[in-house]
């Protein structure tokens, strides 16, 4: 049985599994029986990389079929500082899993830089999870946060840009309709501050987001990068979501119903 390697973003972990991505995603979200549920976001990782930190050499010995011959569903290889130790070139497709185990596969795409002065809202997904308002575009944001010369930086970062609708241009007056974030007034204050001359480029809206990511708030796609590279995983268009990926999208829209 083929062994796959997955990088889970939250909880941050490197997991070996004999399940292919779709089945792994379903298992990861809802378990073997329907006793739990939970959103999951993970990358498929190419096994052919070397790391002094991660013990990837003996995966074949660790991840063996169960005693009844069934495939091993998950074998945790590492759970600490995993993201920074996976080389960028080892990252393959990204998988977004809904609460009830529907899996959407995203491939890498080209990100075309937007040259405008719009404001942005970034949900950092790993290694830390603040919600940040920013005047930087995704490429600049990634470079800024992975720049070790800055007092606050990380070696590698994964984030998603969220919709701001009219607030991206007019944070003072634009409507917040269809924007489901908490602390919306504080967010507006942060965005207004960013517009002021001489302001810092980033403002923390929420220090640590504990809620699941509402997939419907994705503006353009998911980003992972360091100082050198930035990979972009574009989110499907509304038309594709309502047609090609309907069952996933419908499930994604049900998020937030739980108390």
């Amino acid at each position, binding site marked *: 049985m083929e062994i796959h390697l997955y990088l889970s973003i939250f909880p941050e972990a490197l997991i070996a599994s004999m399940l292919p991505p779709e089945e792994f995603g*379903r298992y990861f979200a*809802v378990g*073997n*029986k*329907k*006793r739990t*549920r939970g959103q999951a976001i993970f990358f498929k990782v190419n096994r052919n990389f070397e790391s002094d930190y991660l013990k990837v050499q003996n995966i074949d010995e660790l991840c063996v079929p169960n005693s009844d011959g069934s495939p091993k569903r998950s074998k945790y290889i590492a759970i600490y500082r995993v993201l920074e130790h996976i080389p960028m070139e080892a990252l393959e497709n990204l998988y977004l899993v*809904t*609460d*009830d*185990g529907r899996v959407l596969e995203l491939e890498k795409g080209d990100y075309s830089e937007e040259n405008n002065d719009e404001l942005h809202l970034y949900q950092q997904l790993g290694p830390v999870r603040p919600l940040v308002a920013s005047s930087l575009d995704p490429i600049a944001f990634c470079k800024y946060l992975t720049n070790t010369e800055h007092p606050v930086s990380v070696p590698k970062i994964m984030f998603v840009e969220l919709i701001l609708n009219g607030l991206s241009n007019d944070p003072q007056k634009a409507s*917040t*309709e*269809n*924007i*489901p*974030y*908490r602390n*919306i007034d504080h967010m507006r204050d942060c965005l207004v501050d960013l517009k002021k001359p001489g302001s810092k480029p980033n403002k923390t809206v929420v220090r640590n987001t504990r809620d699941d990511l*509402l997939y*419907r*708030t994705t503006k353009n796609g998911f980003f992972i990068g360091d100082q050198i590279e930035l990979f972009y995983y574009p989110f499907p268009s509304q038309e594709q979501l*309502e*047609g090609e990926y*309907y*069952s996933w999208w*419908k*499930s994604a*829209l*049900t*998020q*937030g*119903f*739980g*108390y």
Partner: protein
Amino acid sequence: MNDIFWFVPITSIIALMFALYFFKQMMKTSEGNDRMIAIASHVRKGAMAYLKQQYKVVGIFFVIMTAVFSVMAYVLNLQNPWVPFAFLTGGFFSGLAGFFGMKTATYASARTTNAAISSLNGALRIAFRSGAVMGLVVVGLGLLDISIWFVALNYFYPVELGDGHNLVIITTTMLTFGMGASAQALFARVGGGIYTKAADVGGDLVGKVEAGIPEDDPRNPATIADNVGDNVGDVAGMGADLYESYCGSILATSALGAAAFLGETDMQLKAVIAPMLIAAMGIILSIIGIFFVKTKEGATQKDLLHSLSRGINISSILIIIFSLAILLVLDISNPYGIWGSIVVGLVTGIIIGKATEYYTSATYKPTQIIAESTGTGPATVIISGLGTGMISTAIPVIAVVVGIVLAFLFASGFDFTQMGLGLYGIGIAAVGMLSTLGITLATDAYGPIADNAGGNAEMSGLGTEVRKRTDALDSLGNTTAATGKGFAIGSAALTALALLASYIEELKIGLLRIGEDVLVFASGLKIDTASATLVDFMNYYEVNLMNPKVLIGMFIGSMMSFLFCGLTMNAVGRAAGKMVDEVRRQFRAIPGIMEGKSEPDYARCVEISTIGAQREMLIPASLAILVPIAVGLLFGVPAVIGLMVGALVAGFVLAVFMANSGGAWDNAKKYIEEGHLGGKGSRAHKAAIIGDTVGDPFKDTSGPSLNILIKLMSMVSIVMAGLTVAFSVL
């Protein structure tokens, strides 16, 4: 007998023939692929299993009640010997209408989905005409039953003989078949209401909230039960409710006509058959209206609503014209006044419908305000929903009040002393409101068909375009359902008022039957019972507000509305709890449900809802029947009249409040889901979901069931009038 009467049975046959035609046309269309057929088959089986179980319980009840009526009629001589049979046929025809309606609806949903693959108009046509089967079967069977009994009783009590008293006997005997229909309706409405909400709330609580599964997802074991519930509650329940109102309004008006024109045999007969003829004309005009319902491809929501409104509006305008023609052809006295009452009834219905729309549609401020209150959490959502629901009672109450006054004044020639004629006007206003029931019920029954069609499209994994079409039809169904509920409660109020007046006629018959030919007043005044007027009876029984018996009755009547609501609400809670346990159990016990590798046990959830609904409806239903009998036996006629008044005024207001609160909470949630106030997944959304869950039994169980409670308590009082006058303790 007047030759024009034969128009009534003929149109009832025409209605049934058109229903058969629409049914056959629908059955000729394809049900789609294997998956669509399998889903529809699950729903159909579940619906039929529910009906079978319900008819079993109702059958036992009917056997017991028929035995009681037989004893009253043949042993105690307290009732007309025809009553047991009239009671049975009323229940049978009502049950038959529910059966045909459900059968058609469950055959139509997959066909609507399949038609939506190629066109919106095709899907609308199948869904609406299948809904029309229910509408036409209800009015067809209702008028057929009325016609058969009128002809049969006329044979035994010829209208030409008896100085008009035979017509009084005929019409009051026919009224008792209304109790059969009422009893059947109560079981259908209460049972259906509990079923649908147990499945809906129970399924949602585990499916959406706990498991994060979207609605209509085949992995949810309660999905099929939820779809069955739409049919059970909104097709069979609503159909039986309006069947009862339809027949009740015609029969009560005929009885009031027989009383109002006693002594003028020719005019009396005309007054008796006038409501039947107007209803018969309404059937023809409904059929014409049904053919006007069509739309173009790519129609907007507004276009779709316009298509349905066009059919209803054409029927309504034509009935205004033709009802005058009928009254003129009949050469009834004061035709323009009576016609005025009919128009008043129609306008009252429209005003209540529009008020319902205003208070429950997200297009208007009240629902938007409830949505805005989500910003401060679920508690304020509940508070503002309750507040809006209470405020929403004002317009319908004022509409009914103005309607009553105008209908009374028009028919009585603006003379308040002409009580009999005025009450006849109120009765015929209810007939006017329900005359186009053939098409208005079609728009109600269409809703669950479209809803199920959407569910089928989801579960079958059909394409975006199909889902968009079925969603458009479903959304339209939600709008028409809210208006339909307003119409149902408005007609129930007027019908109950007519029944209240008819009760006096039953008292008269009851007294004559036990040999009390003369009413002897405390003052020594004596009046022949047969010729005593309504006011005489009020004075004889001291029906005034200073009589504690009247007040006792009013208190009990008001209390009954709340007690009944509370019982049905708790019933939903308990039945939904059982459903939650079962869905959780299946997720635990059946491996592979979430992966879609194994199919849930849908039948078990259907069974739980069915059994739960049947068990839970027994206590509220029994109370509705036993309390009027007990009050009559203990406190006598004044208390029974107080009971009817108390139940009517409290029940009407409570029903409007509950239906509108529930509808407004539902649409406030939808308003947020459309992208307002944070949209899906926001805190506002979560608060709105709580409001919607609370509102579910409000709008779909307790609120609609009150319509029947009001009418059934009146009907039981009427049928038991003989028992009350003979055996009351006080």
